[in-house]
């Protein structure tokens, strides 16, 4: 498969792994956080940890859109879905996320009209097909999914689709990276970041520069293919060895310093930054999310349905918050693989395939057994 196989070549991978092993100074531990769930998935899916030397460690970050959405916002979505004559259109992963014993799937079983969509266009199509009903798109995601939502809102106005609105939960990557670096122990725990792939195609590499400089951390933007990840790890090891803390771009085939200006312009036109937004795991962060701008308020479900903010605590045994901050590994959580499994998740990280817990459970947990076997 052209343009895919080139980035999954086993021979090249072994060559890169050998280069990483040569570059990593023995006696020194390198800890890199992959921010994105897409990277987490690729690392687990291709077994990349097996190719890295023991002193080069990857720590999963918070870049899974489903995982970082706090329970309160999900409960607002459930309340929306239960309104009569309303259709809530949501990405599939969101349906299974548990909140206070409830979920969108359970709401659907009770009679709420919740539809799984792959893209916002399908929500627009629902609104056209059902002019007598309100159709709300449950918008989540980082900067990757924001421009399509902006396009959908503009199209809805152009078509006069008065029954379409968006429950906006779009969040911003640089704010989350800054929050992780601001944690008191981040300086010792992290040597650098594997920076976002698809997000960076939109925002470019420039927005990370201030953060990398302020906290003296290396950041290498990398594609989601397994060779991209290995190449980025090698670049990070070399930065650390030479005492640099720069933003480098491994994903030059798709990411420029300025990003996609047309997409940024669309987003700026339709959205406005929120003063604060609650993140699961990271808490309430300033300027970390987008709301629909006042001039587009007729498409804002929070305005149209007078939604009030909810704040909910996570399940008390669930350690998703610490996992999202990179402070705990999935397998360190007491309920991992016992009370919390992909079939019956307690926390959001066990739901989406981009979630650190689901990725480790589905692809990597045989390594936990190996460790147990050796210690027994």
């Amino acid at each position, binding site marked *: 498969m052209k343009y895919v196989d080139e980035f999954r070549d086993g021979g090249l991978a072994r060559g890169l792994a050998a280069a990483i092993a040569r570059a990593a100074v023995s006696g020194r531990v390198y800890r890199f956080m992959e921010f994105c769930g*897409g990277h987490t998935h690729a690392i687990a899916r291709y077994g990349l940890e097996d*190719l890295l030397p023991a002193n080069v460690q990857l720590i999963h970050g918070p*870049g*899974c*859109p489903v995982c970082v959405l706090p329970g309160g916002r999900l409960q607002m979505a459930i309340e929306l879905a239960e309104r009569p004559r309303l259709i809530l259109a949501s*990405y599939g992963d969101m349906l299974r996320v548990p909140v206070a014993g409830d979920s969108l799937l359970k709401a659907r079983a009770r009679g709420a009209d919740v539809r799984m969509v792959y893209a916002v266009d399908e929500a627009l199509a629902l609104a056209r097909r059902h002019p007598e009903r309100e159709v709300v798109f449950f918008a*989540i*995601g980082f900067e990757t999914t924001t421009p399509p939502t902006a396009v959908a809102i503009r199209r809805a106005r152009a078509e006069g689709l008065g029954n379409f609105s968006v429950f906006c939960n779009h969040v911003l990557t640089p704010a989350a990276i800054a929050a992780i670096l601001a944690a008191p122990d981040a300086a010792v725990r992290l040597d650098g970041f594997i920076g976002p792939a698809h997000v960076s195609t939109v925002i470019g590499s420039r927005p990370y520069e201030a953060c990398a400089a302020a906290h003296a951390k290396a950041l290498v933007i990398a594609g989601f293919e397994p060779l991209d990840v290995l190449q980025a790890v090698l670049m990070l090891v070399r930065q650390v060895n030479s005492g640099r803390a720069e933003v480098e771009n491994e994903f030059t085939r798709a990411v420029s310093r300025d990003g996609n200006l047309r997409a940024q312009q669309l987003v700026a036109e339709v959205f406005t930054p929120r003063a604060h937004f609650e993140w699961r795991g990271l808490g309430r962060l300033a300027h970390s999310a987008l709301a629909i701008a006042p001039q587009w308020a007729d498409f804002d479900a929070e305005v149209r349905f007078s939604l009030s903010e909810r704040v909910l605590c996570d399940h008390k045994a669930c350690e998703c918050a610490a996992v999202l901050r990179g402070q705990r590994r999935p397998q360190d959580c007491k309920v991992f693989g016992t009370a919390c499994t*992909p079939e019956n998740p307690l926390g959001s990280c066990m739901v989406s395939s981009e979630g650190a817990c689901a990725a480790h459970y589905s692809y990597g947990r*045989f390594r936990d057994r190996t460790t147990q076997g050796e210690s027994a």
Partner: protein
Amino acid sequence: MSHGFARRLDLRGRVEMVHGGGGRAMTQLVEELFVAAFANPALQALNDQAVLPPPAGRLVMATDSHVVSPLFFPGGDIGSLAVHGTVNDVAMAGAVPLYLAAAFILEEGLPLADLARIVESMAAAARAAGVSIVTGDTKVVEAGKGDGVFITTTGVGMLAEGIDTGGARARPGDAILLSGTLGDHGVAIMACRDGLDFDVPIVSDSAALHGLVAALIAAVPGVRVLRDPTRGGLGATLNEIARASGVGMRLREASIPLHEPVRAACEFLGLDPLYVANEGKLVAIVPAAAAAAALAALRAHPLGREAALIGECVSDAQHFIELETAFGGRRVLDWLAGEQLPRIC
């Protein structure tokens, strides 16, 4: 058969509630469509049951409901699928399928021409597989309460003494074989649903596998386990076998055959082909010493030309299916949780 109806069934019409009402319209639908297409003495007796001579050996029975949207897809339709699905369930016991029963739930409004096409396709698939559709049932549900047509088929087959291919018989050291490429059926259906148009059309692998099974058993009578990786794909099938047999498995990803368009479509749709449904493939677990003979027997049959040895059973108390990735790393091939979904990020 004398018709006895004022006019023949008008295939330009649609299924109406009256076609399930038990009256003349229903009888006409049954006789002019189903009995005519499936033509065999047991069915033509027009009783509520089929009376059949008992076969030699042991009886094997299996049932399977078929719900698929769209009803027609490249490589088949719900009719041929309803025959192949149940024939294969019987065949995986190592048995020779003989008879099918078919129950139809029709949705009011289904074009009768579509129904006729489906029934003809079922009849052709049954003839090709050498099985007779000997009894059946028809119900009609109101518009909106079905998906055009649902078909449940129940199959009966004959199993010779001495053959046992149940899922609990895999042993550490056994070889794991796959009869061909993965994902063709599931991807063909999804490509139809999403209106995806590939340069090379992806065609369902829907096929009756009892001939392939017979060839395999003739070459390797000691086959331990046979199963067809339908819903949940290879991942679900191997996990079922590992759990039932109390073994683990080691697979080599690079040895698992995939058609290039299927691989590309899975990449595009964000799917893992190891979890995508197949309707014309089987997994065979055989003693290591018989692996070469089993592979040769599979490859000698038209439905097994692309068969491959994909791994081995190992001793593992936790029954993990471990996959050596094409990349040189390792991972678990777990049960699928929920549905496969594309990435948001």
